[in-house]
Protein backbone atom coordinates (compact mmCIF):
# COMPACT_ATOMS: atom_id res chain seq x y z
CA UNK A 1 0.00 0.00 0.00
CA UNK A 2 1.58 3.26 -1.00
CA UNK A 3 -0.90 5.43 0.85
CA UNK A 4 0.81 6.52 4.05
CA UNK A 5 -0.10 4.49 7.13
CA UNK A 6 -2.08 5.89 10.02
CA UNK A 7 0.63 6.55 12.55
CA UNK A 8 -0.65 6.11 16.10
CA UNK A 9 0.25 9.05 18.36
CA UNK A 10 2.68 6.93 20.40
CA UNK A 11 4.29 5.18 17.42
CA UNK A 12 8.05 5.35 17.32
CA UNK A 13 10.04 7.20 14.68
CA UNK A 14 13.31 5.39 14.26
CA UNK A 15 16.05 7.32 12.59
CA UNK A 16 19.56 8.71 12.66
CA UNK A 17 21.12 11.82 14.09
CA UNK A 18 24.29 12.80 12.26
CA UNK A 19 26.82 15.07 13.89
CA UNK A 20 28.47 17.28 11.29
CA UNK A 21 30.80 18.63 13.95
CA UNK A 22 32.56 15.34 14.58
CA UNK A 23 32.27 13.59 11.20
CA UNK A 24 35.75 13.35 9.73
CA UNK A 25 34.58 12.15 6.32
CA UNK A 26 36.36 8.81 6.46
CA UNK A 27 33.61 6.97 4.48
CA UNK A 28 33.66 4.08 7.00
CA UNK A 29 29.86 4.26 7.34
CA UNK A 30 29.39 4.07 3.58
CA UNK A 31 31.65 1.04 3.37
CA UNK A 32 30.05 -0.71 6.36
CA UNK A 33 26.64 -0.01 4.86
CA UNK A 34 27.69 -1.50 1.54
CA UNK A 35 29.16 -4.53 3.27
CA UNK A 36 26.15 -5.28 5.48
CA UNK A 37 23.45 -4.58 2.92
CA UNK A 38 25.16 -6.51 0.15
CA UNK A 39 24.15 -9.56 2.14
CA UNK A 40 21.09 -8.09 3.84
CA UNK A 41 17.42 -7.36 3.21
CA UNK A 42 18.06 -5.42 -0.04
CA UNK A 43 20.90 -7.60 -1.35
CA UNK A 44 22.66 -7.50 -3.70
CA UNK A 45 23.94 -3.94 -4.08
CA UNK A 46 25.11 -4.46 -7.61
CA UNK A 47 28.32 -2.91 -8.88
CA UNK A 48 29.14 -2.57 -12.55
CA UNK A 49 32.65 -2.20 -13.95
CA UNK A 50 33.91 -2.33 -10.38
CA UNK A 51 37.57 -2.63 -11.39
CA UNK A 52 37.35 -0.74 -14.67
CA UNK A 53 37.61 2.90 -15.59
CA UNK A 54 33.95 3.78 -14.97
CA UNK A 55 32.92 1.99 -11.77
CA UNK A 56 29.29 2.43 -10.76
CA UNK A 57 27.09 0.77 -8.21
CA UNK A 58 24.36 0.97 -5.63
CA UNK A 59 25.27 2.77 -2.41
CA UNK A 60 22.78 3.72 0.30
CA UNK A 61 25.15 6.08 2.00
CA UNK A 62 27.35 8.64 0.28
CA UNK A 63 29.71 11.10 1.92
CA UNK A 64 30.08 14.60 0.50
CA UNK A 65 32.35 17.41 1.64
CA UNK A 66 31.19 21.00 1.57
CA UNK A 67 32.76 24.32 2.31
CA UNK A 68 30.32 26.63 4.09
CA UNK A 69 30.88 30.36 4.29
CA UNK A 70 32.84 30.63 1.05
CA UNK A 71 32.39 34.40 1.02
CA UNK A 72 34.28 34.76 4.28
CA UNK A 73 37.94 35.25 3.58
CA UNK A 74 40.86 33.61 5.36
CA UNK A 75 39.87 31.24 8.14
CA UNK A 76 36.16 32.13 8.20
CA UNK A 77 34.79 29.25 6.19
CA UNK A 78 34.14 25.73 7.49
CA UNK A 79 34.87 22.45 5.78
CA UNK A 80 32.07 20.06 6.63
CA UNK A 81 31.84 16.38 5.82
CA UNK A 82 28.31 15.45 5.01
CA UNK A 83 26.99 11.87 4.99
CA UNK A 84 23.78 11.52 2.98
CA UNK A 85 21.30 8.65 3.16
CA UNK A 86 17.55 8.06 3.39
CA UNK A 87 15.97 10.29 6.04
CA UNK A 88 12.88 8.08 6.53
CA UNK A 89 10.59 11.06 6.07
CA UNK A 90 7.17 11.38 7.71
CA UNK A 91 5.71 12.71 4.43
CA UNK A 92 7.66 10.59 1.94
CA UNK A 93 6.40 11.35 -1.57
CA UNK A 94 8.70 8.52 -2.69
CA UNK A 95 6.08 6.22 -1.18
CA UNK A 96 2.89 7.90 -2.37
CA UNK A 97 4.03 8.19 -6.01
CA UNK A 98 4.77 4.47 -6.23
CA UNK A 99 2.18 2.90 -8.56
CA UNK A 100 2.62 -0.70 -7.43
CA UNK A 101 2.58 -0.71 -3.65
CA UNK A 102 6.25 -1.74 -3.61
CA UNK A 103 7.24 1.32 -1.59
CA UNK A 104 5.77 1.60 1.86
CA UNK A 105 6.22 3.22 5.21
CA UNK A 106 5.95 1.01 8.27
CA UNK A 107 3.24 2.11 10.70
CA UNK A 108 5.04 0.81 13.76
CA UNK A 109 8.43 2.54 13.45
CA UNK A 110 8.21 4.80 10.39
CA UNK A 111 10.89 3.01 8.38
CA UNK A 112 10.49 3.43 4.60
CA UNK A 113 11.10 0.24 2.61
CA UNK A 114 10.79 -1.25 -0.87
CA UNK A 115 9.24 -4.65 -1.51
CA UNK A 116 11.45 -5.84 -4.34
CA UNK A 117 8.97 -8.50 -5.41
CA UNK A 118 6.40 -5.85 -6.33
CA UNK A 119 8.68 -3.15 -7.79
CA UNK A 120 8.43 -2.66 -11.56
CA UNK A 121 11.50 -0.41 -11.71
CA UNK A 122 9.66 2.67 -12.99
CA UNK A 123 12.13 4.89 -11.05
CA UNK A 124 9.45 7.43 -10.17
CA UNK A 125 10.22 7.14 -6.45
CA UNK A 126 13.81 8.19 -7.08
CA UNK A 127 12.51 11.27 -8.90
CA UNK A 128 10.18 12.04 -5.98
CA UNK A 129 12.94 11.89 -3.36
CA UNK A 130 14.56 15.34 -3.01
CA UNK A 131 17.54 13.85 -1.19
CA UNK A 132 18.77 11.31 -3.73
CA UNK A 133 18.29 8.47 -1.31
CA UNK A 134 17.01 5.86 -3.76
CA UNK A 135 19.21 3.97 -6.15
CA UNK A 136 18.20 1.79 -9.07
CA UNK A 137 19.77 -1.61 -9.45
CA UNK A 138 20.34 -2.04 -13.21
CA UNK A 139 21.03 -5.71 -12.82
CA UNK A 140 17.87 -6.70 -10.98
CA UNK A 141 15.69 -3.95 -12.50
CA UNK A 142 14.28 -2.77 -9.17
CA UNK A 143 14.73 0.17 -6.81
CA UNK A 144 16.81 -0.11 -3.66
CA UNK A 145 17.26 2.05 -0.61
CA UNK A 146 18.46 2.28 2.96
CA UNK A 147 16.48 0.00 5.28
CA UNK A 148 17.83 1.57 8.46
CA UNK A 149 19.33 -1.92 8.79
CA UNK A 150 15.94 -3.40 9.56
CA UNK A 151 17.70 -6.76 9.64
CA UNK A 152 20.01 -5.62 12.44
CA UNK A 153 17.95 -3.35 14.65
CA UNK A 154 15.22 -5.95 15.30
CA UNK A 155 17.56 -8.94 15.04
CA UNK A 156 17.51 -11.00 18.21
CA UNK A 157 20.39 -13.19 17.12
CA UNK A 158 22.68 -10.20 17.53
CA UNK A 159 23.95 -8.98 20.87
CA UNK A 160 21.79 -6.13 22.07
CA UNK A 161 24.60 -3.62 21.73
CA UNK A 162 24.86 -4.52 18.05
CA UNK A 163 21.19 -3.93 17.23
CA UNK A 164 21.94 -0.61 15.55
CA UNK A 165 22.50 0.22 11.87
CA UNK A 166 25.88 -0.85 10.48
CA UNK A 167 26.86 2.78 9.80
CA UNK A 168 26.30 3.68 13.46
CA UNK A 169 28.26 0.65 14.67
CA UNK A 170 31.31 1.44 12.60
CA UNK A 171 31.63 5.22 12.89
CA UNK A 172 35.04 5.83 14.54
CA UNK A 173 34.08 9.28 15.83
CA UNK A 174 30.57 8.39 17.01
CA UNK A 175 29.17 10.99 14.66
CA UNK A 176 26.13 8.81 13.99
CA UNK A 177 23.41 8.13 16.53
CA UNK A 178 20.40 5.85 16.24
CA UNK A 179 17.17 5.98 18.20
CA UNK A 180 13.52 6.92 18.49
CA UNK A 181 12.98 10.51 17.52
CA UNK A 182 9.30 10.41 18.48
CA UNK A 183 10.24 9.89 22.14
CA UNK A 184 11.33 13.22 23.63
CA UNK A 185 13.21 11.45 26.41
CA UNK A 186 15.37 9.32 24.10
CA UNK A 187 19.08 10.05 23.88
CA UNK A 188 18.78 11.10 20.22
CA UNK A 189 15.89 13.49 20.92
CA UNK A 190 17.87 15.08 23.75
CA UNK A 191 20.88 15.44 21.50
CA UNK A 192 18.76 17.13 18.85
CA UNK A 193 17.28 19.52 21.42
CA UNK A 194 20.69 20.31 22.94
CA UNK A 195 22.60 20.85 19.73
CA UNK A 196 19.89 22.38 17.54
CA UNK A 197 19.46 19.40 15.21
CA UNK A 198 17.75 20.35 11.98
CA UNK A 199 15.96 19.02 8.88
CA UNK A 200 17.38 19.09 5.35
CA UNK A 201 15.30 21.09 2.83
CA UNK A 202 12.44 21.68 5.27
CA UNK A 203 10.79 23.91 2.64
CA UNK A 204 9.73 20.86 0.63
CA UNK A 205 7.57 19.52 3.44
CA UNK A 206 8.85 15.93 3.56
CA UNK A 207 9.40 16.15 7.35
CA UNK A 208 12.56 14.04 7.49
CA UNK A 209 13.04 11.88 10.58
CA UNK A 210 16.84 11.97 10.44
CA UNK A 211 18.36 15.09 11.92
CA UNK A 212 21.70 16.78 11.35
CA UNK A 213 23.65 18.47 14.13
CA UNK A 214 25.38 21.64 12.94
CA UNK A 215 29.13 22.19 13.34
CA UNK A 216 29.72 23.79 16.74
CA UNK A 217 30.37 27.53 16.62
CA UNK A 218 34.06 28.30 16.62
CA UNK A 219 35.77 31.43 17.89
CA UNK A 220 36.46 33.69 14.95
CA UNK A 221 40.14 33.42 14.08
CA UNK A 222 41.97 36.55 13.17
CA UNK A 223 43.67 36.33 9.83
CA UNK A 224 47.21 35.19 10.48
CA UNK A 225 49.42 37.26 8.24
CA UNK A 226 52.03 34.50 8.14
CA UNK A 227 49.50 32.36 6.24
CA UNK A 228 48.76 34.86 3.54
CA UNK A 229 52.17 36.53 3.19
CA UNK A 230 53.56 36.04 -0.27
CA UNK A 231 56.69 34.13 0.59
CA UNK A 232 58.16 34.42 -2.90
CA UNK A 233 58.87 38.09 -2.27
CA UNK A 234 60.32 37.57 1.15
CA UNK A 235 63.89 38.52 1.85
CA UNK A 236 64.72 35.57 3.99
CA UNK A 237 68.01 35.81 5.83
CA UNK A 238 69.79 32.97 4.06
CA UNK A 239 73.44 32.07 4.34
CA UNK A 240 75.84 29.57 2.85
CA UNK A 241 74.33 26.35 1.58
CA UNK A 242 70.74 27.51 2.01
CA UNK A 243 71.44 30.63 0.03
CA UNK A 244 72.95 28.53 -2.75
CA UNK A 245 69.96 26.11 -2.73
CA UNK A 246 67.58 29.05 -2.84
CA UNK A 247 69.36 30.45 -5.87
CA UNK A 248 69.30 27.10 -7.68
CA UNK A 249 65.62 26.51 -6.90
CA UNK A 250 64.61 30.00 -7.89
CA UNK A 251 65.91 29.52 -11.43
Amino acid sequence: MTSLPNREPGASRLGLVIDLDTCVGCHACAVACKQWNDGGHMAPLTDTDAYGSGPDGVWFNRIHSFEAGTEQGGCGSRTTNFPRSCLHCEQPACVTVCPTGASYKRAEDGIVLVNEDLCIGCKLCSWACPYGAREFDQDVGVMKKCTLCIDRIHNETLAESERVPACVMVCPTSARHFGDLADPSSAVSKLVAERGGYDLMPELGYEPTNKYLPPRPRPALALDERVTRDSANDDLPLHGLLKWADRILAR
Partner: protein
Amino acid sequence: MHPAFSIIFFTSAAGAGYGLLALLGLLAPFGLLPASPLFGLAALALALGLVVAGLLSSLAHLGRPERAWRALSQWRSSWLSREGVAAVATFLPAGVFAIAWLFLGGGVAGVAGWITAAMAAVTVYCTAMIYASLKPIRQWANPWVPRTYLALSLMTGALLLNALLGVVGQASAWSSLLALASVALAWAAKEGHWRHCATARAVSTAETATGLGHIGRVRLLDAPHSEDNYLLKEMGFRVGRRHAVRLRLITRLAAFALPAALSLGALVVGPGALSGTLALLAAAAAALGVIAERWLFFAEAKHTVTLFYGAGEA
Protein backbone atom coordinates in the same frame (compact mmCIF):
# COMPACT_ATOMS: atom_id res chain seq x y z
CA MET B 1 16.50 15.00 -15.76
CA HIS B 2 17.68 12.36 -18.20
CA PRO B 3 15.57 12.57 -21.38
CA ALA B 4 14.74 8.89 -21.94
CA PHE B 5 13.46 8.36 -25.46
CA SER B 6 10.91 5.78 -24.35
CA ILE B 7 9.16 8.40 -22.19
CA ILE B 8 9.50 11.20 -24.73
CA PHE B 9 7.86 9.00 -27.36
CA PHE B 10 5.24 7.75 -24.91
CA THR B 11 4.07 11.18 -23.77
CA SER B 12 4.05 12.75 -27.23
CA ALA B 13 2.56 9.81 -29.19
CA ALA B 14 -0.06 8.92 -26.60
CA GLY B 15 -0.83 12.64 -26.19
CA ALA B 16 -1.50 13.00 -29.91
CA GLY B 17 -3.50 9.77 -29.97
CA TYR B 18 -5.70 10.85 -27.07
CA GLY B 19 -6.14 14.30 -28.62
CA LEU B 20 -7.34 12.78 -31.88
CA LEU B 21 -9.53 10.24 -30.07
CA ALA B 22 -11.15 13.00 -28.01
CA LEU B 23 -11.88 15.11 -31.10
CA LEU B 24 -13.37 12.12 -32.95
CA GLY B 25 -15.57 11.34 -29.95
CA LEU B 26 -16.64 14.95 -29.60
CA LEU B 27 -17.26 15.74 -33.25
CA ALA B 28 -18.57 12.51 -34.79
CA PRO B 29 -21.89 12.68 -32.90
CA PHE B 30 -22.52 16.11 -34.46
CA GLY B 31 -22.13 14.61 -37.93
CA LEU B 32 -19.14 16.84 -38.56
CA LEU B 33 -16.91 14.02 -39.76
CA PRO B 34 -17.18 12.12 -43.06
CA ALA B 35 -19.76 9.35 -42.82
CA SER B 36 -17.67 6.81 -44.73
CA PRO B 37 -16.71 3.88 -42.49
CA LEU B 38 -13.33 3.80 -44.15
CA PHE B 39 -12.52 7.27 -42.81
CA GLY B 40 -13.78 6.27 -39.38
CA LEU B 41 -11.69 3.14 -39.41
CA ALA B 42 -8.54 4.97 -40.50
CA ALA B 43 -9.02 7.76 -37.95
CA LEU B 44 -9.70 5.38 -35.06
CA ALA B 45 -6.80 3.16 -36.08
CA LEU B 46 -4.46 6.14 -36.10
CA ALA B 47 -5.68 7.44 -32.73
CA LEU B 48 -5.69 4.10 -30.95
CA GLY B 49 -2.50 3.03 -32.72
CA LEU B 50 -0.65 6.07 -31.36
CA VAL B 51 -2.05 5.44 -27.88
CA VAL B 52 -1.05 1.78 -27.88
CA ALA B 53 2.39 2.49 -29.34
CA GLY B 54 2.94 5.13 -26.66
CA LEU B 55 1.83 2.86 -23.84
CA LEU B 56 4.06 0.04 -25.11
CA SER B 57 6.98 2.44 -25.31
CA SER B 58 6.41 3.46 -21.68
CA LEU B 59 6.83 -0.19 -20.71
CA ALA B 60 10.30 -0.13 -22.25
CA HIS B 61 11.30 2.31 -19.52
CA LEU B 62 10.58 -0.21 -16.76
CA GLY B 63 13.19 -2.38 -15.08
CA ARG B 64 10.64 -5.20 -14.78
CA PRO B 65 8.09 -4.71 -17.60
CA GLU B 66 6.52 -8.12 -16.99
CA ARG B 67 5.15 -6.79 -13.71
CA ALA B 68 3.61 -3.68 -15.29
CA TRP B 69 0.05 -4.75 -14.39
CA ARG B 70 0.89 -4.09 -10.75
CA ALA B 71 0.99 -0.38 -11.57
CA LEU B 72 -2.82 -0.35 -11.72
CA SER B 73 -3.16 -0.98 -7.99
CA GLN B 74 -2.25 2.26 -6.19
CA TRP B 75 -4.63 4.77 -7.77
CA ARG B 76 -5.49 6.12 -4.32
CA SER B 77 -2.14 7.85 -3.96
CA SER B 78 -0.15 7.61 -7.20
CA TRP B 79 -0.70 9.65 -10.37
CA LEU B 80 1.24 7.08 -12.36
CA SER B 81 -1.19 4.42 -11.20
CA ARG B 82 -4.17 6.70 -11.93
CA GLU B 83 -2.81 7.26 -15.40
CA GLY B 84 -2.55 3.53 -15.99
CA VAL B 85 -6.10 2.96 -14.76
CA ALA B 86 -7.45 5.86 -16.84
CA ALA B 87 -5.59 4.62 -19.94
CA VAL B 88 -7.00 1.11 -19.60
CA ALA B 89 -10.48 2.39 -18.73
CA THR B 90 -10.57 4.67 -21.79
CA PHE B 91 -10.47 1.64 -24.07
CA LEU B 92 -13.97 0.63 -22.90
CA PRO B 93 -15.96 3.69 -24.05
CA ALA B 94 -13.58 4.02 -26.98
CA GLY B 95 -14.48 0.48 -28.11
CA VAL B 96 -18.20 1.13 -27.74
CA PHE B 97 -17.82 4.43 -29.56
CA ALA B 98 -15.86 2.81 -32.39
CA ILE B 99 -18.48 0.12 -32.97
CA ALA B 100 -21.39 2.52 -32.65
CA TRP B 101 -19.85 5.14 -34.91
CA LEU B 102 -18.76 2.73 -37.61
CA PHE B 103 -21.76 0.42 -37.67
CA LEU B 104 -24.72 1.72 -35.70
CA GLY B 105 -24.75 5.50 -35.52
CA GLY B 106 -27.29 7.32 -33.41
CA GLY B 107 -27.41 8.07 -29.71
CA VAL B 108 -25.03 5.36 -28.52
CA ALA B 109 -22.20 6.82 -30.59
CA GLY B 110 -22.93 10.24 -29.11
CA VAL B 111 -22.85 9.23 -25.46
CA ALA B 112 -19.91 6.86 -25.88
CA GLY B 113 -18.04 9.48 -27.92
CA TRP B 114 -18.35 12.12 -25.26
CA ILE B 115 -17.38 9.73 -22.49
CA THR B 116 -14.36 8.72 -24.57
CA ALA B 117 -13.38 12.36 -25.03
CA ALA B 118 -13.67 13.03 -21.30
CA MET B 119 -11.65 9.92 -20.41
CA ALA B 120 -8.95 10.82 -22.93
CA ALA B 121 -8.63 14.25 -21.32
CA VAL B 122 -8.49 12.68 -17.85
CA THR B 123 -5.72 10.31 -18.99
CA VAL B 124 -3.59 13.14 -20.41
CA TYR B 125 -4.17 15.14 -17.23
CA CYS B 126 -2.98 12.17 -15.14
CA THR B 127 0.16 11.89 -17.29
CA ALA B 128 0.92 15.55 -16.68
CA MET B 129 0.28 15.21 -12.95
CA ILE B 130 2.91 12.47 -12.68
CA TYR B 131 5.40 15.26 -13.36
CA ALA B 132 3.52 18.15 -11.77
CA SER B 133 3.34 16.32 -8.44
CA LEU B 134 7.13 16.01 -8.08
CA LYS B 135 8.21 18.75 -5.66
CA PRO B 136 11.96 18.19 -6.09
CA ILE B 137 11.70 19.50 -9.68
CA ARG B 138 10.37 23.03 -9.71
CA GLN B 139 10.20 23.21 -13.53
CA TRP B 140 7.58 20.45 -13.27
CA ALA B 141 5.75 21.13 -10.03
CA ASN B 142 3.56 23.94 -11.35
CA PRO B 143 0.14 24.29 -13.01
CA TRP B 144 1.72 25.13 -16.37
CA VAL B 145 2.64 21.49 -16.84
CA PRO B 146 -0.93 20.08 -17.00
CA ARG B 147 -1.94 23.10 -19.08
CA THR B 148 0.85 22.45 -21.57
CA TYR B 149 0.23 18.71 -21.73
CA LEU B 150 -3.50 19.14 -22.33
CA ALA B 151 -3.05 21.93 -24.88
CA LEU B 152 -0.34 20.05 -26.79
CA SER B 153 -2.45 16.91 -26.85
CA LEU B 154 -5.39 18.88 -28.25
CA MET B 155 -3.10 20.60 -30.74
CA THR B 156 -1.48 17.45 -32.11
CA GLY B 157 -4.90 15.76 -32.24
CA ALA B 158 -6.44 18.67 -34.16
CA LEU B 159 -3.53 18.79 -36.61
CA LEU B 160 -3.83 15.04 -37.20
CA LEU B 161 -7.58 15.36 -37.74
CA ASN B 162 -7.10 18.19 -40.20
CA ALA B 163 -4.49 16.13 -42.05
CA LEU B 164 -6.76 13.07 -42.16
CA LEU B 165 -9.62 15.15 -43.52
CA GLY B 166 -7.23 16.66 -46.04
CA VAL B 167 -6.05 13.26 -47.22
CA VAL B 168 -9.62 12.19 -48.00
CA GLY B 169 -10.24 15.55 -49.66
CA GLN B 170 -12.62 16.74 -46.95
CA ALA B 171 -10.59 19.41 -45.19
CA SER B 172 -12.91 22.24 -44.38
CA ALA B 173 -12.74 25.70 -42.93
CA TRP B 174 -13.73 24.58 -39.46
CA SER B 175 -11.09 21.87 -39.20
CA SER B 176 -8.32 24.25 -40.28
CA LEU B 177 -9.63 26.87 -37.89
CA LEU B 178 -9.72 24.34 -35.08
CA ALA B 179 -6.11 23.39 -35.85
CA LEU B 180 -5.09 27.03 -35.92
CA ALA B 181 -6.83 27.86 -32.64
CA SER B 182 -5.35 24.84 -30.87
CA VAL B 183 -1.84 25.76 -32.04
CA ALA B 184 -2.34 29.27 -30.65
CA LEU B 185 -3.54 27.84 -27.34
CA ALA B 186 -0.66 25.38 -27.05
CA TRP B 187 1.91 28.00 -28.01
CA ALA B 188 0.57 30.34 -25.35
CA ALA B 189 0.66 27.54 -22.76
CA LYS B 190 4.24 26.57 -23.63
CA GLU B 191 5.46 30.18 -23.52
CA GLY B 192 3.70 30.49 -20.17
CA HIS B 193 5.54 27.42 -18.91
CA TRP B 194 8.91 28.70 -20.12
CA ARG B 195 8.28 32.11 -18.59
CA HIS B 196 7.33 30.51 -15.30
CA CYS B 197 10.56 28.47 -15.27
CA ALA B 198 12.65 31.53 -16.06
CA THR B 199 11.09 33.85 -13.49
CA ALA B 200 9.99 31.70 -10.54
CA ARG B 201 12.50 31.74 -7.73
CA ALA B 202 14.39 28.57 -6.88
CA VAL B 203 12.83 26.89 -3.87
CA SER B 204 15.86 25.01 -2.63
CA THR B 205 19.54 25.90 -2.56
CA ALA B 206 22.80 24.25 -1.59
CA GLU B 207 22.35 26.11 1.72
CA THR B 208 18.93 24.60 2.52
CA ALA B 209 19.99 21.18 1.22
CA THR B 210 22.91 21.00 3.63
CA GLY B 211 21.44 23.23 6.34
CA LEU B 212 24.79 25.04 6.50
CA GLY B 213 23.44 28.36 5.24
CA HIS B 214 23.82 29.96 8.69
CA ILE B 215 27.58 29.78 8.19
CA GLY B 216 27.44 31.30 4.73
CA ARG B 217 27.45 30.34 1.08
CA VAL B 218 27.93 26.62 0.50
CA ARG B 219 29.96 24.96 -2.21
CA LEU B 220 30.83 21.35 -2.91
CA LEU B 221 34.44 20.45 -2.14
CA ASP B 222 34.39 16.72 -2.78
CA ALA B 223 31.75 14.46 -4.29
CA PRO B 224 31.35 11.01 -2.73
CA HIS B 225 32.69 9.13 -5.75
CA SER B 226 35.00 9.97 -8.60
CA GLU B 227 32.65 8.59 -11.28
CA ASP B 228 29.03 9.33 -12.18
CA ASN B 229 26.45 7.28 -10.31
CA TYR B 230 22.76 6.49 -10.85
CA LEU B 231 21.69 9.78 -9.28
CA LEU B 232 23.84 11.85 -11.61
CA LYS B 233 23.02 9.84 -14.71
CA GLU B 234 19.27 9.90 -14.03
CA MET B 235 18.79 13.26 -12.33
CA GLY B 236 21.93 15.24 -12.98
CA PHE B 237 21.46 15.51 -16.76
CA ARG B 238 22.60 18.91 -18.00
CA VAL B 239 21.86 20.43 -21.35
CA GLY B 240 24.26 22.98 -22.78
CA ARG B 241 22.83 26.50 -23.00
CA ARG B 242 23.52 26.61 -26.72
CA HIS B 243 21.60 23.38 -27.30
CA ALA B 244 18.71 24.63 -25.20
CA VAL B 245 18.45 27.85 -27.18
CA ARG B 246 18.55 25.97 -30.47
CA LEU B 247 16.00 23.39 -29.34
CA ARG B 248 13.63 26.10 -28.18
CA LEU B 249 13.92 27.66 -31.60
CA ILE B 250 13.16 24.30 -33.22
CA THR B 251 10.19 23.87 -30.89
CA ARG B 252 8.83 27.33 -31.64
CA LEU B 253 9.24 26.83 -35.36
CA ALA B 254 8.29 23.19 -35.85
CA ALA B 255 5.66 22.79 -33.15
CA PHE B 256 3.96 26.16 -33.40
CA ALA B 257 4.95 28.65 -36.11
CA LEU B 258 5.02 26.22 -39.05
CA PRO B 259 1.83 24.32 -38.19
CA ALA B 260 0.07 27.66 -37.63
CA ALA B 261 1.24 29.05 -40.97
CA LEU B 262 0.45 25.81 -42.83
CA SER B 263 -3.00 25.52 -41.25
CA LEU B 264 -3.67 29.12 -42.15
CA GLY B 265 -2.55 28.33 -45.69
CA ALA B 266 -4.92 25.35 -45.79
CA LEU B 267 -7.71 27.61 -44.59
CA VAL B 268 -6.99 30.26 -47.20
CA VAL B 269 -6.62 28.01 -50.25
CA GLY B 270 -9.83 26.18 -49.39
CA PRO B 271 -10.65 22.46 -49.78
CA GLY B 272 -8.58 20.61 -52.33
CA ALA B 273 -5.40 18.67 -52.82
CA LEU B 274 -3.20 21.64 -51.91
CA SER B 275 -4.87 22.29 -48.58
CA GLY B 276 -4.68 18.57 -47.82
CA THR B 277 -0.94 18.62 -48.43
CA LEU B 278 -0.52 21.70 -46.26
CA ALA B 279 -2.48 20.09 -43.43
CA LEU B 280 -0.34 16.95 -43.70
CA LEU B 281 2.85 19.00 -43.56
CA ALA B 282 1.53 20.88 -40.53
CA ALA B 283 0.99 17.60 -38.66
CA ALA B 284 4.45 16.33 -39.65
CA ALA B 285 6.15 19.52 -38.46
CA ALA B 286 4.27 19.37 -35.16
CA ALA B 287 5.38 15.78 -34.61
CA LEU B 288 9.01 16.86 -34.82
CA GLY B 289 8.37 20.00 -32.76
CA VAL B 290 6.62 18.17 -29.95
CA ILE B 291 9.46 15.63 -29.69
CA ALA B 292 11.89 18.55 -29.34
CA GLU B 293 9.61 20.17 -26.75
CA ARG B 294 9.39 16.95 -24.73
CA TRP B 295 13.17 16.41 -24.90
CA LEU B 296 13.66 19.90 -23.47
CA PHE B 297 10.96 19.29 -20.86
CA PHE B 298 13.20 16.61 -19.39
CA ALA B 299 16.61 18.04 -20.18
CA GLU B 300 15.87 21.44 -18.62
CA ALA B 301 14.29 20.02 -15.48
CA LYS B 302 16.64 20.36 -12.52
CA HIS B 303 16.30 17.98 -9.59
CA THR B 304 17.20 19.01 -6.03
CA VAL B 305 19.65 16.10 -5.76
CA THR B 306 21.99 18.19 -7.94
CA LEU B 307 22.35 20.52 -4.92
CA PHE B 308 24.45 17.83 -3.28
CA TYR B 309 26.66 17.65 -6.35
CA GLY B 310 27.67 21.24 -6.89
CA ALA B 311 24.53 23.05 -8.06
CA GLY B 312 23.81 26.31 -6.24
CA GLU B 313 20.05 26.22 -6.55
CA ALA B 314 17.31 24.04 -8.00
